[in-house]
């Protein structure tokens, strides 16, 4: 009798486990929950990058920083600026063109500083003036509530579109100079080398060539192209891809005993004979140091 009861319990347990297995197999394998209404945060990494590129391209046209920020928030990034910077760096490493990388670097910079640094739109057809409506919920429905005014192309009113940040003024249809505005240099004004310092820090990468690019008011400038050349090779990169180190910061790793020349593309002259210095630590050990080049507009 006792054995019979034990068998029954065993059968019940086995039956329960069998049923559980069948249920799980059906719900996980045969008919799993399917997502047809996914949000951008669920996208695969490469599609997220493509999404960021389109956000940046859209921002380059509209200069609507609040909307660009809201759209990036849809991706669920903890550090949207860092993600954009990493994407820009990857694109540069993948030999993407300036036209492809520039909008991403510009959006990263503007998100970092909190306002649009290129508020005057150059779109050829319509000019959009956004009313300062705060966008909290980044959905298409919310976007649709924005009040917008369309001006024709030949309306000669300089048009500004700002993010609602403490630094930015309210939207206006007249051009108002702002003391905190902007780090974009005047085109054609040369950057000249104002400092060349040897950096002996064993904690830094050996041969690290650091750049700081500043405008005439000593504010760091993002998006400036730098060319480093050596023995029939060259590397091109831009300031602003590491905003945590400054908008005007860029760096490059030199090889020991290789002579480089450096040029800031924005009308700059060539700085020749750049060589990684040798440094000595307190124990007398020799190691390859770095250089800090500072360029500034006069």
């Amino acid at each position, binding site marked *: 009798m006792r054995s019979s009861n034990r068998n029954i319990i065993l059968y019940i347990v086995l039956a*329960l486990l069998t*049923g*559980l297995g069948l*249920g799980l197999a*059906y*719900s996980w394998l045969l008919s799993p*929950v399917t997502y047809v209404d996914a949000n951008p945060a669920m996208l695969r990494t490469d599609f997220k990058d493509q*999404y960021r590129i*389109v956000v940046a391209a859209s921002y380059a046209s509209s200069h609507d920083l609040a909307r660009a920020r809201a759209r990036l928030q849809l991706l669920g990034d903890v550090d949207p600026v860092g993600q954009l910077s990493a994407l820009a760096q990857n694109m540069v490493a993948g030999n993407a063109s300036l036209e492809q990388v520039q909008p991403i670097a510009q959006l990263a910079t503007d998100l970092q500083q909190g306002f649009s640094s290129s508020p005057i739109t150059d779109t050829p057809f319509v000019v*959009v003036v956004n009313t300062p409506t705060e966008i909290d919920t980044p959905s298409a429905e919310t976007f649709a509530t924005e009040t917008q005014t369309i001006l024709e192309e030949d309306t000669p009113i300089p048009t500004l579109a700002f993010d609602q940040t403490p630094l930015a003024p309210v939207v206006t249809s007249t051009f108002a100079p702002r003391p905190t505005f902007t780090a974009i240099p005047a085109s054609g004004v040369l950057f000249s080398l104002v400092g060349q310092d040897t950096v002996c820090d064993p904690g830094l990468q050996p041969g690290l060539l650091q750049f700081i690019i500043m405008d005439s008011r000593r504010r760091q400038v993002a998006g400036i192209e730098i060319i480093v050349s050596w023995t029939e090779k060259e590397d091109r990169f831009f300031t602003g891809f590491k905003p945590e180190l400054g908008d005007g910061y860029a760096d490059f790793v030199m090889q020991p005993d290789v002579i480089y020349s450096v040029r800031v593309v924005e009308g700059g002259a060539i700085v020749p004979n750049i060589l990684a210095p040798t440094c000595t630590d307190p124990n007398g050990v020799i190691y390859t140091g770095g250089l800090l080049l500072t360029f500034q507009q006069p």
Partner: protein
Amino acid sequence: MKSSNWITIIAAIIIGIGIGLTYGWVINPVVYTDVTPDALRADYRADYVLMVAEAYQGEQDSETAARRIAMIGSESPDLIVTSSLDYAIANNFSQNEILLLQGLLTAMQTYQPQPVNAP
């Protein structure tokens, strides 16, 4: 074995299936983290196409716009834009946004993909 025992076992199987389904569908369903853009909800799709339209307004590059639109579906770009335009109109997008989408739709309707030359 008694018939009552068989009933008990079948009941246990059914209970097990119920527990399995509840666990697999409700408590711990399959989590999708790497979905493709064609699974985006309609409003996100419309906003994505609107972004492409905004970018197209500045760039005037039909090929780039078509490539970006192709990311969110296998239909032809003009059909995807048409669908987004319908959504925009039905959901009271602003006039400017609708104009942008219409501009992109016109570009996609007239866009001819460049033939790829064989090596």
